[in-house]
């Protein structure tokens, strides 16, 4: 349940009610889904979207789902699992995570480089902007270029352009089989080379990560015979990088990728967690420069690392193209500073959608 006091929290039950609350708002509000991804700053009135919950439409034969933004992620995942379908982008998330939070943070997982992030599966939105106006964009079909793509703009906007109320997703069938090719014991650098070789192979890998102690992990999904075939070919192709072990046990395969997604080896370590997105070939270099505990995903394109609390990891990475997000902690801005012209455009967009600057002020700049 919400940890904020009742007096400082509003929980609209309908989109209209939400629009009315935003129009009537006298000052800044903190938009909160499950409150699992970003801790609200103290003192702000909380606008809790949990009341805008429920499945609007689920059409398994069209691979389409429409939900209200406050719907818990767990409820959606259970619904889809019963039809042997899934969200393609592996959102992950703590208990209580909502679909609105998933979209507002553009959540994604190990399948990012193959199936995309939330932005790539999100095909329609409804939201209430900072003026209290209800806006819809996109729709419920897979291909749609009718007008500007505000869906992408809202995905990852962290509530600063509007409060999401309804979301349409394109889904993926769960493949019958999944396996993981493991090259045990490799360093970040050796693993990086192996992962990039796997990603450049024709074997359609859907995961390429590294955890210290475990080694390089390469996931293959699909029809059972095809998975066997591709694992075999990958083991041969990657032989120069190390001897391969193929993990086929479904529970252990699931656990490996859940651990990687959650950066499990970092749990209990000291320092603030950073997520650093770079060219895959720069991943091992990032791990080495930051010097602490780290895992790599996306073939090295994503590094999650612990860096001393209060210090700015970006200072060590200035010459590498990419960006770094401070997931939790102090001493640096959460989001990577943008070049001035880009920051100016982003600020102007926020001013258009939220002219009073009341939605999650200061969160993105």
């Amino acid at each position, binding site marked *: 349940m919400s940890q904020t006091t009742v007096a400082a929290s509003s929980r609209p039950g309908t989109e209209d009610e939400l629009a009315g609350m935003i129009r009537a708002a006298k000052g800044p509000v903190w938009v909160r889904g499950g409150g699992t991804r970003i801790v609200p700053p103290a003192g702000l009135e909380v606008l809790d979207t949990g009341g805008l919950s429920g499945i609007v439409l689920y059409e398994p034969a069209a691979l389409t789902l429409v939900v209200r933004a406050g719907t818990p992620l767990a409820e959606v995942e259970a619904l889809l699992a019963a039809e042997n379908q899934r969200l393609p982008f592996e959102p992950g998330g703590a208990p209580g995570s909502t679909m609105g939070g998933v979209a507002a943070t553009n959540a*994604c997982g190990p399948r990012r480089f193959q199936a995309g992030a939330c932005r*790539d599966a999100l095909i329609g939105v409804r939201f209430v902007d900072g003026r209290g106006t209800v806006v819809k964009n996109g729709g*419920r*079909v897979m*291909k749609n*270029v009718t007008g500007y793509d505000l869906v992408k703009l809202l995905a990852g906007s962290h509530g600063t*352009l509007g409060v999401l109320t309804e979301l349409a997703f394109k889904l993926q069938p769960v493949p019958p089989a999944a396996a993981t090719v493991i090259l045990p014991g490799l360093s970040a650098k050796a693993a990086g080379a192996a992962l990039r070789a796997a990603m450049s192979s024709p074997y359609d890998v859907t995961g390429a990560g590294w955890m210290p102690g475990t080694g390089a992990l390469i996931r293959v999904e699909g029809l059972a015979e095809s998975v066997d075939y591709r694992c075999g070919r990958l083991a041969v192709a990657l032989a120069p990088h190390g001897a391969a072990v193929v993990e086929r046990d479904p529970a252990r395969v699931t656990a490996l990728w859940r651990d990687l997604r959650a950066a499990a080896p970092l749990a209990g370590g000291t320092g603030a967690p950073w997520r650093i997105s770079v060219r895959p070939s720069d991943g091992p270099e990032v791990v080495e420069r930051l010097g602490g505990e780290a895992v790599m995903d*996306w073939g090295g394109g994503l590094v999650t690392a612990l860096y001393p609390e209060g210090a700015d990891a970006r200072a060590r990475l200035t010459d590498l193209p990419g960006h770094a997000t401070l997931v939790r902690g102090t001493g640096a801005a959460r989001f990577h500073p943008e070049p001035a012209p880009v920051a100016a455009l*982003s600020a102007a967009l926020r001013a258009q959608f939220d002219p009073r600057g009341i939605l999650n002020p200061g969160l993105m700049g």
Partner: protein
Amino acid sequence: MQMPPPDRAILSRKAEIVARLRAALPGEAVIDDPVELRAYECDALSAYRCPPLAAVLPRTTAEVAAALRTCAEMGVKVVPRGAGTSLSGGSMPSEDAVILGVARLTRVLEVDYDNRFIRVEAGRTNLSVTGAVEAEGFFYAPDPSSQLACAIAGNIGMNSGGAHCLKYGVTTNNLLGVTLVTMQGEVIGLGGPFCDAGGLDLLGVICGSEGQLGVVTEATLRILPKPEGARPVLIGFAASDIAGACVADIIRAGILPVAIEFMDRPCIEATEAFCGAGYPDCEALLIIEVEGAPAEIDEQLRLIREIALRHDPVEIRESRSEAESKRIWLGRKSAFGAMGVMGDYMCLDGTIPVSALPMVLRRIGELSAEYGLRVANVFHAGDGNMHPLILYNANQPGQLELCERLGAEILTLCVEAGGCLSGEHGVGIEKRDLMTVQFAPADLEAQMRVKDVFDPRWLLNPAKVFPLETSAGRRG
């Protein structure tokens, strides 16, 4: 279709504007000769033509910036143009606008196989992006049918798709970064060879903005390793709805083909007469392509055959060789050419939920009879992106207007079925005035506010996408 009346003051200053552009750019980059300008009077929506004030063809990003800055200073409208293959009139000029073509920006700037990306200038054609990387076993996935001619800049402007986007996504899912020049002449880098640049997803809103927010001069694109092989199967059906039901069952079964293409009888007959692909005599057919190693292909085709057999197919024709694959694709790939031989046609682009296919196809048949105009259907069935082709005779007075009215009815039907006006061609001028069918005033207002940010004076491709009366106050 209407365009706003040209700005007389701009027309009267043509000589001065051309001189200013010539001063800012190398001489050969500026075209003002009326005969040469005729090449720019339309795009692939050739029913509408209008010569522009002038055309500029820069060779570098700096020259693009100089051209835009000059036009902004003089208050001249600019219409960006890739290869001019837009089917919706996205690069249709107006008399008082300068065409800014990126056709001379064609270089490959960087290829990085290790990190799976290519950086190109945006005038490069779609197919030649793949051409630059295929020797190493890679390809660029989005494959619009015009891929031999169309430019990456136009693909980004319209967020182009293609037959294979069922598996690989459309342009926006394969675009990692751009160099964008704003109407004010400012050069901005967005994204790069890494995922999700953080901050607001400006790259996501640039893609598909129909050249109204800026001019893209360079693009970083995701390239993918080519699968070991691909093979199509052709399945004929006794009725269009049965083919539609078969598509739904294949998707439901969890098989993910790279393409599921649909053709109905009028389209099959036209292509047979045109290229003799030897398609079966049936009401509808599907071409389904799967990828992988030989054994993987066999496994997927076996499952598809099992599903198809439940729908009493007229024929199932599995390709067993490269030659047979080519033959199966021949008719589909010739469909638009075949229609062109039969007469004038208008190609629609509405998308519907796959589950609504049978109903929408039936209703299109009824509308076709009501209007007395033949409609052939050929489309990407796996994602519901329809391409009804309405045949008409442009030389017969009133037929174009009749055809446009039927087109508007069919697109309205798509929206009512839960779909949208355009799946991959863009709004341009063609569907501009139908936008109110799909969007409420507040929805359009939100989109126009984005343009206000990038192009406050609405000089860039201004009379497109939004109904003229909706954008009137902003266009000045």
